[in-house]
């Protein structure tokens, strides 16, 4: 998905994990994914650099669809679609 498409996507759940460092965002994502339905989109906000690599790997393993990320000023939005 392009950045524009991601910015306009309907997000079922937004997880703000900017206040935690590795492995906090992953932990937050794991907790939140149970609260949405299959096929819905979740976004994770993270200020942790490592998360940019960790979340796609986690998606790959859990078979969620990693849609891409959008860089903001001091953090990153990571988007995924639940399997």
């Amino acid at each position: 998905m392009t950045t524009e498409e991601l910015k306009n996507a309907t997000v079922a759940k937004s997880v703000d994990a900017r206040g935690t460092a590795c492995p906090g965002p992953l932990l937050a994502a794991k907790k939140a994914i149970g609260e949405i339905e299959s096929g819905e989109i979740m976004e994770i906000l993270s200020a942790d650099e490592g998360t940019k690599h960790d979340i796609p790997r986690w998606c790959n393993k859990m078979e969620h669809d990693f849609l891409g990320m959008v860089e903001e000023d001091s953090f990153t939005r990571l988007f995924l679609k639940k399997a």
Partner: protein
Amino acid sequence: MQEDLQLQIQQLQQQVEKLQKSVTKMQNSRKDQLSIACVSGDMDKILATMIISIAAASMDTKVKIFFSFWALSALRDKNKNPKGKDFISKMFGIMLPKGKNQLKLSNMNMAGMGPMMIKYLMKKHNVLSLDEMFKAAGELGVEIIVCEMSMDLMGFKKEEFIDYPYFKYAGAATFVTDAGESAAQLFV
């Protein structure tokens, strides 16, 4: 003629059973499981163990940490005072850190200045504290296996360990068999 056939069928059945057994064994040899043998009681090494465990458990990998020797200090609860220890056990109890918040650093300990600085930095960088990490690990179902032999050796009692939902007491053979089934093994 019929007897011959029956014998052949019997032999085939035996072969199938043998194959089934080896297939199960092979399937079990690479479970989505992480086994960690943690023998260090240094704060940095316990931190690394917990971070890796939480990351793995978040990815639905089954995690089993085998706590042995110096690492057992990290599992002590500073508010618990078990009775009935002999003299040497009491001495060990006094000399060893009482819980995860009293651990030393393997480098730059500087008489306790190092751990204080690390704790300050961890807070500043929003890293979970060891207390929070053990709580998260418990919520994720990370199993902690306490080596009974080193527990006895160091004079620790079950009553002085922290409250943790997945505590187990076992010996080295448990770690060896668990590790043999795991896709990844670590020694800390």
